[in-house]
Each structure stands twice: as structure tokens, then as C-alpha cells.
């Protein structure tokens, strides 16, 4: 030990007085590269005419500074911003391009895009139909192609004749397949149809084309059968899939057959995509014709039409106009189908296939034809046969009518893609002619573009109200209209009238499910286009309808959507909260989980800018928040907990009493009481207080801390504490740093609040950071006692750390350094002796468990030397305004300097011990170098110090771990320094340094 004891004399640098660095307040990190943010117009390259819009581009200034480069790399997000046009503006630019092209080509119909691209894809429709139209009844399937693996011979063959007959029967079924009738449940049915599909493909692949055709015909035949009405749309979807497969097989086969010989060449090549019949060789044409002759002789109407539709595309091999002619012809022939449901689905399949086979030049008249075809036979829906069937199957007409919607919607959407305005007017007129036109009306409203519907909203409304048949019920019609109008509002002058009429009918619905379905659709319209008074009335009406017999219990989902729309589209959140009927509506949610969800939805959808000081609103907010808060329990998942914490914090940030700090503090105290369960919120409150007390410089520090907290796994109180901090800082700003008695009391109250609140935080790391921060803020507001208490508390906490993340050195080392730098300006507590805090810290540090190999303690000790050196100066490098630090307290009293020197000696000794323990390694060399530097630069060049320095130098050089370049540069620096200071001792030392 003796050899390690060193007499330390701190060097007091007189230059510091003069060279106090000029400080400038900045908003950004000074080393970050500048980016040009202005928007540079750039022409879009290409043939499209410039649309006049510009593409925003930000161009980075090329920088060569390696430091800025490094900084740039640190932040991949801003790097992305610098290099790329942001994706949205890029998209906008592309859209512009498209628009331009569209305008250019819109006039010529040839190059027009497929107008049906806008339509919903068939696959998604299919899935929807399959999930919607199901049945639990037994379905029958008549077919001869289902292989019966489990066919058991039941009969015992008693006589020879029986045997022969049986054998013949078997042969028969083997050859032709006797027709069987099977009764199946839905799932079996679907699997059978699937089986048929596979059978078709496999027999096609094994060249049994006639069998494939037979299967297709049998499948199509199944569509004649409406035995189980609710399943029919699904059946249609399943079977048309098979037919599509069949059509595709035929078409592909013909195409392969139709390899044509290009004029001038000899080898046959496949037909191009847009071939003409002239290119098709005779053999392929003949095969194709054969197919159509075969189909034409199918006896039954429905299978014949379906199979022909499936093969429509193959008409292209024969002639160009055959396909279109057939479309029109089949459109007419469908009139022969007596069952209106079968007919409408046949039309749907025709339209679907028609769209897929038609090329750009085709005539789309058949689409409209199909719709008018349906209209012509519309009355047939109410005919005797349908009635008889419905009676037999016990199905109400209104349900029956909904079976039409998938097919009709598809047809009408296809029509609407091509139709112009007059078509809609025509249809409306047709609707008016019939007295039972609800189905058509509904289809029109869901099929046409909402803009067109909205223009005629009044007209529609009148027709809807007039058509009171038992088809589609009134509430469905009103709902559909509501959905249209939500997307696109009707003319301004009609809005009020429309709402009045509609709501008159809506509120007259007695059944709650009808009522809520309508209300849900119309609420958005009301919210968007009417004032809060109307919204309030509507909400009140909803409550009135939902309350009797606890109806709301069955309609939570709709109510949730209603609240969601109201909140999402309302601009004025405050008035919403004050509204008489809004909170009562929330009250309808009696189920805890739903209630929480709704509250969450409300609180998150408010804009973050809005601030309030209104007690009513605050109360409402607190009510909603407490719902959230109360939902937290031990079983709440971590994410949920975090989310709720964040929501609560954002609400706390919104309540802003401006300069009424007392009120604000009261609110925070109340919040602390209410939200005691959630850590983050408490932390937020402490933070706000500290903010209230600090000043701008501190704000930088705080914001840094805020960021770390957000990313660290901090617990919830943080936010609340943060809010309190802000409060303190604000106060300080208001009073310009000079506390009167009252403001002094206030900030002291704030500090006390923080000090009290922090211990309730669970996360130790956050607690440590908040103590330090609160101490800093308190110091800033000249609350020396509170600051001292905070620091002491932090020190007391340090040795008791249990959390792994808090104990990790990556956290502790920066934290202690930060602590050290704060300690410089903390004046000594006269009751506790000189440098009491630092001593405590040193003691605590020594007791902590450090990783031996890393020797972080050594590094921290070296930092302590730096601090002590700074403390010995006459004027400190930084100070807190209106706080007298040790420099002015002691005025560089020799006794004080002596204390420092003594402390330094101890520290150096400790470091040397540590170095010895560490043994020979790279780390040892590094620490030795560091210490060497401190000894030479911070200490007075006395004899013993120089010896120490020399030893350290050699230690660092030993075993070749030293960073030679660094040491060389160090030596050069020391040389110049010794010359500048005219320090002979140092010069001697430098001369002795060997590398």
C-alpha cells in the first residue's frame, strides 16, 4: 500500500477564467448535417404532359465531415428522409402520371383500361357468399360419377339368376355409371362437389373428354334444383367453379391444338394472346365446332346454358363476333328459366364470364340487357310458384329476397361500371312503376356509385317510402341509402330535409335491431354535416331506444361503431364531452371489457393538440380515464398495461390550466390519487413538476431524459412526474428566475411532490433517473434542501439495486458520470462537512458489484479525478443561476483545496490498487494511460507525481497493449504544453517518455 500513496496537488488552471466558452442556445445538434427542406419542382420525365404539380424533393447537402457522417448513420430514419423522396409524395407523383395518361387516352376507347378493374374480385365475393349462405338441411345430389369406394354388396346372391343380374348391374355401373341419388349434409355436399371437380380434371387428363363433358353437364344440372333455398348461392359458387375449370380446360386444349404456322415460316408456334379466327387451323376449328354442336344438343335448358357460358371463350376460335352474339342470345334465352332464382344466378354467371372473355372492343350491351331482363321478369318473383316453394320450405319472402342480392349486386355493379347517368334515371323510373320494387332499389343503391345516388337522394327516399312491400324491409333500404350518403353527401340544401324524413321513419322502428342497423348507418352523415345540437338529439334518441328491456346488451357492437364514428369525425372534442347524451351513451356499456375498449377508443381518437382547462371537460376526461385505470388488475397483460398508461399520460398532458399553477398542481395531486396503480402516470407527474421548476437549459437535459424513459422499460408513473417537472419549469420561466415567497413555496411544493411520488415507482432505473432529474430541477429553483434530499435518496437507492437492467454497467456508468457532473454545482450542505455527497457517492461506488475484468470502477474513479480537478478551480466551468456553488462558498480556500487533494490521493491509490488486481491486459494499459494523463494534466508537476506518471507510462507501454499512435500524440501534446507553460519538470518527463 505504501508505494501507492501519492501526494496529489491539483493544478489550478488560471486560463479558465478567461476562456469561458461562449454559449449559444441551439435547437438541434450542432454536428448534424443540414438538410435542404425546401421543395424543388421537378418535371416528370416521360411523354405525359406536365400536370403542373410538383414533386417534393429534399436533397441532402453532400458532407465529407466524418463526424457528421457518423452522426448521420446513427439515425437511419432521418437518413432515409434525406435520401429518398418520402413514399407518399412518390405515390402522388405516380398518380399524377397516371392521371395525365388517363386524360390523354380517355377519349379513344381502344386503349381504355378495363372498366371492370374497379369491381370487387370474384374470389372475395365467393368467400363471402360461401360464408353467408349455409344450411343445416340435407342436400341431394344426383350423379353417376361419384366413385363409391365403400360400395358394399348387401344382397346375398341366392340364385344363379340373381348372381347374373347383379353382375350385369355391376358391369353397367362400371361402364356408364348408374345415377344415384345421395342425401348429404352441407359439408359432405361440398366435398362431393370437390370430388366431382377432381373427377372432371382427371378424366380430362386421361383423354376421356366425353366423360368430362358429362360431369360438367351433371354439375350444371344441380343448379336447376332449389330444394334447399338458403344454400343456393353457395351451391352456385361451388358449381360455377367446376364449370370455369371445364371451360378453361377446353379452351387451353384448343389453344394447344391450334398451334399455327406463321406466314413465311414453317414451324408451328402457339397462338398469340390476341389471335384472330383466321390464324386458327381448320383442325382446331373443327374440334371447337364439334364441342358447340355437342352442347347445342343438351336436352335440358339450364345445363345447356351453363355449359355454353362456360365455353363462351372458345367461340373466339371460330369467329370474332360469335362470342358477343351468343352473349346477347343467352341473355334472351335465360327468360325461359322459370325459377327466378335460378334465372338470376344464370344471368350472374353470364355476366361474370362475359366480362372475363370480352376484349376491349366488345359491346357491353348484354350487361344492361341482363339487368333489364331481370326487371322484365321481376313480377315473377311474386308468382304462384315462388309462393308455393316458399311455403314448402317455410321461408319468409324477405329472407328469400336476400338470396338474390349476391347475383344482382354483381350484375348491377358490372352495369354501373359502364353506365352513364341516364341509366340510373331510367331505373328509378322503372322502380316507381312497380309497387314492390324494394329489391331493385336496394340493389341499385348498393351497385351504383354513391355520388350518383347522393345526387338523387331525395328521389330515392321518396321511392323507398312509397314502396312498402314485403320484399326487402324498409330498414334495410334506409340503411343502404345511409351508407351511400355517408360516402358522398347529398346537395347541401336537401340535407336537412333528408335527415328529418329519414329519422322520422327510423325512430318509428320498434324492433331494436332494425333501429340500430339504421342508426349506425346514418350517424356518420349526421356527425359530418350537422351541428352538435343535432348529434346530441340523435344520441339521445338512440339512448331512448336502447334502454328499454336492456336492448343495448344485444347491440354493443353497433353502439361501439356509433361511438367510434361520432368520436372520429367530430372536430370539436370538447363540446362532445359536454354534450348531454354522450357520456350516458358510454354508460350503456355495462360489460367491463367493452366499456374499457370504448373509453380507450374515445381517448385515443382525440387530437393531441387540444388542451383544456374546463372543469366539466376535465371531469369527463377523468371519468373516462378512471374506467381505464380501474380495469387494470394483476392479470392485465403487459402491453395492455403500457397502452393504458400511455393513454392516461396523454390525457394528463392535455389538461392545462395555463398560468394557474395552483390549480394545475391540484389536478396533478388528484390524478396521483386516482391513477395510483399505474407507474408511468406517476412518473409523468413528477416529470411535469420538474419541468415547472427548471429552465430552458434544463429543458434540453429533460427532453433527453424523457426520450430515454420512453424507450427504457419504464413504468407508468414517469409521465405524471414529467408533467410535474414541466410545471416547475414553467413557473420558473414565468417568474424569470427570481422567486417571490409565494412562487418559492410553490416550487418547493412541487419538489416535495416529486420526492414523495418517486418511491411509488416500481422500476428502479426510472426511480434513479427521476431522483437525479428532480434534484437538478430543485437545484435550479434554488431549493437546495430538496435537491440535497433527492441526491441523498438516489445514493441510498444505489446499493440496494435488484433489477438487472438497472444494475448493468451500461446504465450505471453514464448515470454516475451524469451524477458527478451535477455534483460540481451542488453547494455543500453546511451540516455535513466538505464534499459530503461526493464522498458518499465514492463509498457507494466502491461497494457496488462491478465486473472485475471491465474495471468500470477504475474508469469512474478517473472521472472523479476530473470532477475534483474542476472543483478546485476558482470559477467553475458552469453554474446555476442564483445558486452559489462551492467556488463562491469556499473561494478556493486552501483548506478546501487540501481536502480535494486528499481525496484525489485516495482515489489514485484506489485506482493503482485496482490496476494491480486487474493484472496484465489491454484494459490495464488503457486505464493506466488515462490515469497518466490525469496525473500529468490535472496535477502539479511535483517530483513524486512525475515518478508516478513515469511508472504509469511504462505500465501502459508494457506487454505491447498500448495504443502507440495515441501515446505518440499525447507525448507531442505534452511537449507543446510544457513549452507553453514553461514547465521544466514536465519537459524532463516528456524527454524520458519512450515509446
Amino acid at each position, binding site marked *: 500500500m505504501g508505494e501507492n500513496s501519492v501526494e496529489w496537488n491539483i493544478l489550478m488552471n488560471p486560463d479558465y477564467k478567461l476562456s469561458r466558452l461562449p454559449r449559444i442556445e441551439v435547437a438541434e445538434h450542432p454536428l448534424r448535417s443540414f438538410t435542404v427542406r425546401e421543395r424543388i419542382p421537378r418535371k416528370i420525365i416521360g411523354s405525359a404532359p406536365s400536370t403542373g404539380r410538383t414533386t417534393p424533393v429534399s436533397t441532402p447537402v453532400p458532407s465529407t465531415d466524418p463526424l457528421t457522417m457518423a452522426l448521420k448513420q446513427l439515425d437511419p430514419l432521418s437518413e432515409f428522409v434525406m435520401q429518398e423522396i418520402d413514399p407518399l409524395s412518390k405515390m402522388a407523383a405516380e398518380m399524377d402520371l397516371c392521371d395525365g395518361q388517363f386524360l390523354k387516352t380517355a377519349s379513344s376507347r381502344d386503349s381504355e383500361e378495363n372498366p371492370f378493374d374497379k369491381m370487387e374480385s370474384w374470389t372475395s365475393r365467393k368467400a363471402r357468399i360461401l360464408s353467408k349462405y349455409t344450411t343445416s338441411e340435407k342436400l341431394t345430389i344426383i350423379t353417376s360419377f361419384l366413385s363409391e369406394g365403400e360400395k358394399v354388396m348387401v344382397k346375398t346372391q341366392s340364385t344363379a339368376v340373381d348372381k347374373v343380374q347383379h353382375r350385369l348391374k355391376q358391369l353397367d355401373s362400371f361402364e356408364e355409371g348408374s345415377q344415384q341419388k345421395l342425401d348429404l349434409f352441407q359439408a359432405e355436399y361440398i366435398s362431393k362437389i370437390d370430388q366431382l371437380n377432381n373427377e372432371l380434371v382427371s378424366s380430362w387428363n386421361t383423354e376421356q373428354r366425353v366423360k368430362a363433358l358429362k360431369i360438367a353437364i351433371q354439375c350444371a344440372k344441380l343448379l336447376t334444383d332449389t330444394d334447399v333455398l338458403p344454400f343456393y348461392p353457395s351451391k352456385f359458387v361451388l358449381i360455377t367453379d367446376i364449370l370455369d375449370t371445364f371451360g378453361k380446360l377446353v379452351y387451353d386444349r384448343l389453344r394447344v391444338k391450334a398451334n399455327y404456322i406463321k406466314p413465311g415460316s414453317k414451324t408451328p408456334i402457339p397462338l398469340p394472346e390476341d389471335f384472330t379466327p383466321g390464324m386458327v387451323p381448320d383442325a382446331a376449328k373443327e374440334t371447337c365446332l364439334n364441342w358447340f354442336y355437342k352442347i*347445342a344438343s343438351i336436352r335440358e335448358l339450364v345445363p345447356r346454358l351453363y355449359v355454353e357460358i362456360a365455353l363462351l371463350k372458345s367461340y373466339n376460335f371460330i369467329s370474332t363476333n360469335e362470342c358477343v352474339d351468343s352473349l346477347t*342470345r343467352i341473355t334472351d334465352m335465360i327468360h325461359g328459366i*322459370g325459377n327466378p332464382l335460378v334465372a338470376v344466378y344464370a344471368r350472374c354467371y353470364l355476366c361474370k364470364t362475359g366480362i372475363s372473355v370480352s376484349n376491349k372492343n366488345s359491346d357491353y350491351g348484354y350487361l344492361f340487357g341482363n339487368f333489364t331482363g331481370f326487371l322484365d321478369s321481376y313480377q315473377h318473383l311474386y308468382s304462384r310458384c315462388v309462393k308455393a316453394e316458399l311455403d314448402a320450405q317455410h321461408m319468409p319472402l324477405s329472407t328469400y329476397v336476400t338470396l338474390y342480392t349476391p347475383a344482382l349486386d354483381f350484375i348491377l355493379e358490372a352495369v354501373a361500371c359502364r353506365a352513364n347517368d341516364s341509366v340510373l334515371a331510367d331505373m328509378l323510373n322503372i322502380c316507381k312503376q312497380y309497387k314492390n320494387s324494394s329489391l331493385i332499389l336496394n340493389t341499385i343503391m348498393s351497385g351504383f356509385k354513391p355520388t350518383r345516388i347522393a345526387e338523387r337522394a331525395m328521389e330515392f327516399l321518396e321511392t323507398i317510402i312509397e314502396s312498402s312491400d314485403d320484399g326487402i324491409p324498409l330498414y334495410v333500404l334506409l340503411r343502404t341509402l345511409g351508407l351511400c350518403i355517408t360516402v358522398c353527401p347529398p346537395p347541401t340544401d336537401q340535407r336537412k330535409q333528408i335527415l328529418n324524413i329519414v329519422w322520422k321513419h327510423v325512430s318509428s322502428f320498434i324492433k331494436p335491431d332494425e333501429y340500430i342497423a339504421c342508426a349506425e348507418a346514418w350517424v356518420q352523415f349526421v356527425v359530418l354535416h350537422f351541428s352538435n345540437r343535432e348529434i346530441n338529439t340523435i344520441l339521445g334518441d338512440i339512448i331512448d331506444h336502447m334502454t328499454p328491456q336492456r336492448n343495448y346488451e344485444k347491440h354493443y357492437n353497433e353502439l361501439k361503431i356509433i361511438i367510434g364514428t361520432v368520436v372520429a369525425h367530430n372536430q370539436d372534442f370538447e363540446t362532445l364531452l359536454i354534450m348531454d347524451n354522450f357520456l350516458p351513451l358510454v354508460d350503456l356499456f355495462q360489460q367491463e371489457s367493452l366499456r374499457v375498449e370504448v373509453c380507450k377508443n374515445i381517448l385515443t381518437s382525440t387530437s393531441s393538440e387540444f388542451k383544456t382547462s374546463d372543469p366539466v371537460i376535465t371531469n369527463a376526461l377523468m371519468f373516462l380515464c378512471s374506467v381505464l385505470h380501474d380495469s387494470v388488475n394483476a392479470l392485465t397483460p403487459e402491453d395492455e398495461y403500457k397502452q393504458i398508461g400511455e393513454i392516461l399520460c396523454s390525457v394528463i398532458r392535455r389538461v392545462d390550466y395555463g398560468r394557474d399553477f395552483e390549480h394545475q398542481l391540484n389536478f396533478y395531486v388528484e390524478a396521483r390519487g386516482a391513477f395510483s396503480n399505474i407507474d408511468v402516470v406517476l412518473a409523468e407527474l413528477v416529470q411535469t413538476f420538474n419541468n415547472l421548476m427548471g429552465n430552458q437549459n434544463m429543458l434540453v437535459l429533460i427532453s433527453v431524459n424523457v426520450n430515454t424513459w420512453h424507450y427504457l422499460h419504464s413504468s407508468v408513473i414517469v409521465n405524471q412526474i414529467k408533467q410535474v417537472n414541466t410545471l416547475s419549469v414553467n413557473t420558473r420561466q414565468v417568474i424569470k428566475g427570481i422567486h417571490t415567497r409565494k412562487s418559492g413555496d410553490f416550487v418547493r411544493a412541487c419538489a416535495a411532490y416529486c420526492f414523495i411520488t418517486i418511491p411509488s415507482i416500481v422500476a428502479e432505473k426510472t426511480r434513479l433517473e427521476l431522483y437525479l432529474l428532480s434534484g437538478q430541477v430543485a437545484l435550479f429553483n434554488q431549493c437546495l434542501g430538496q435537491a440535497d434530499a433527492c441526491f441523498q435518496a438516489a445514493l441510498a437507492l444505489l446499493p440496494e439495486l435488484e433489477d438487472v437492467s438497472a444494475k448493468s454497467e451500461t446504465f450505471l456508468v453514464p448515470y454516475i458520470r451524469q451524477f458527478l457532473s451535477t455534483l460540481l454545482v451542488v453547494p455543500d450542505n453546511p451540516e455535513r462537512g466538505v464534499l459530503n455527497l461526493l464522498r458518499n457517492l465514492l463509498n457507494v461506488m466502491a461497494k457496488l458489484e462491478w465486473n472485475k475484468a471491465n474495471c468500470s470502477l477504475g474508469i469512474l474513479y478517473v472521472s472523479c479525478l476530473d470532477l475534483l480537478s474542476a472543483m478546485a478551480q476558482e470559477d467553475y466551468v458552469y453554474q446555476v443561476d442564483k445558486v452559489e456553488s462551492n467556488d463562491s462558498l469556499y473561494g478556493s480556500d486552501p483548506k478546501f483545496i487540501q481536502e480535494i487533494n486528499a481525496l484525489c490521493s485516495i482515489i489514485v491509490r484506489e485506482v493503482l490498487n485496482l490496476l494491480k488486481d486487474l493484472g496484465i491486459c489491454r484494459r490495464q494499459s488503457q486505464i493506466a494511460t488515462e490515469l497518466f494523463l490525469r496525473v500529468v494534466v490535472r496535477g502539479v508537476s511535483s517530483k513524486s507525481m512525475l515518478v508516478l506518471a513515469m511508472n504509469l507510462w511504462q505500465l501502459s507501454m508494457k506487454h505491447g497493449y498500448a495504443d502507440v499512435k495515441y501515446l505518440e500524440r499525447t507525448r507531442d501534446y505534452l511537449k507543446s504544453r510544457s513549452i507553453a507553460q514553461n514547465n521544466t519538470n514536465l519537459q524532463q518527463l516528456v524527454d524520458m517518455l519512450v515509446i
Partner: protein
Amino acid sequence: MAISLDIRLKRADKIYCEEDNVTGVIVISSNSDFKHEGITLIMEGSVNIQVSTKNVGIIEAFYNSVKPIQLINLTCEVSGAGRLPSGTTEIPFEIPLKSKANRVLYETYHGVYVNIGYGLRCDIKRSFLSKDLQKSQQFLIQYRPGYNACPQLPLRDKRTPVNFELSPSTLSSGRTGAPDFLLKGVIDTVCCNISKPFKGKLVLVKCAVPVRSIELQLVRVETCGCAEGYAREATEIQNIQIGDGDAPQNIPIPIYMVFPRLFTCPTLITTNFKLEFEVNIVVIFQDDHLITNNFPIVLVRE
């Protein structure tokens, strides 16, 4: 030692008109060379008439079947006796379609009692030790569009649309059992181009009982002359449904039927036999009551 023999016609659809040249190749493939006594190609065409068993007894029908009427019979010597090399040998041929004197090449037709068929037959004669080889290939005859084999047909006045109306009062059977109904319709023409579909439309104006099905029945009427006089037989060719179930009322339902190939041909009236066609419009009501309206039609190729 497998020798395969095939006749490949140049036209994929195998349809020829009178005066055309039937061209193609005889394809002989064998894995060794072989000797033959000569190759001949024979073109044959004939009308086969069989008398219905309904008019005469079975045995009489068997004996009394009218002798086939030969329309064409040409024999070409493709090659004299010689050797064919191993591998595939293709011998192209070209035979002009010329009928025998005083005969007309009728269109190909397959019916029940009358068949008109044409074929090519290739024979390879071999020495008595090995089997002769034979291969037949059918081909079809169609009239040139516009040609009419039966000048006696009254075509002009049959080109106008035919209106018809069906109701219980117009039924030949009287009103018995028929429900109250009214069916109006129009047929574009009863003198039909065989290559174009049969068209028209019908409207169910009123109907007391739901309709089960509306069908088009295509019927051939074959008449054969034989020792005992004429035998006239009407049989169904095909039945096409145009209305399924209770068809909506007052909406025109298209009548549309494609004439099947082979089983139909332009209406033919000769001294020995007649081929005529009829269309029946059949309405079947829910109670299985059936109403038929018959339209004799004339088929021509145009």
C-alpha cells in the same frame, strides 16, 4: 410384323362437295419391307334403305330391304404388285367426286331407315400366305350452298315468318283436359337454312296451371318406297328444352335450336325415298298435360 394402314384426308372437317377433289394420303408404316399384290383405293357412296318392321313383318323386312342405291363407285389402282420398304410410306391421292350417271350425290345423312354414306376404302392385296389389309375412311358430302337437289320444293312462299297461337280452342283434341292457357309465338321461317339455327320466339300470355317445361322436338320423317307401297316413319332426332319450370308470363322466350350434323340434311324427295323434317313445340303442364304443335319444315343449304 405389324403393318398399319391409314387414310388421311387433307380437309380436317372431311366435308366435300360434288366436283371437289378428295385429296389425302395413304399412310403405310411397317417395321420391315414387305411384298404385296397391289394397292387399290375405292370410293363408294350409297343410299341404304331399310323398311320399318312396323309396316311389314320382321321376316319380310329382312328380305324386302330395298337394295342400296349406289351413288358413286370409283376404283383406282394405286400400285401394282411390288415391295414396300420398311418405315412409313405415304402415297398421296386425289380423286374427283363425280357421281354415277343419272345419280346425284346427296348429302350425308344418318337416319333410322335411310342412311346416306360415303367412304374411301384402301385394300392391300397380299400373297395367299398372309392376310390382306383393308382400311376405310368416311367422308361427308354437302351441297354447295344454294344448290337444291329437290327442285320440286315450294321455297318462295315459305320464307315469311309464321305466327301461331295456341289455346284450348285451337286444339284438335278439343277442350278436354287442357287448362286455360294462351300461347302466342312466331317462327322466323319454316324454310330453314340447315347451317343456321331454327329461330323464333313464343310468349306465354296466360296460363292457369304452372308450366313444367317447354320443348322443341326435331322429328325426321322418312318415307321409303318398297314392293308393298310407301312406308312413312316419323322418329325423334332431338328434344331441346327452351323453357324450364313455370316460365314468366308475357315475356318472349326465344326459340332456338341448332340442327345437328349428320342427323339432318336438306329435305330430300326422290322417287325411292323421302327425307323430311318437322318441329314440334311441346308444352308440358305441371299436371302432365301435354300440348304439341307441329310445324313441317323445309331444310335447305344456303
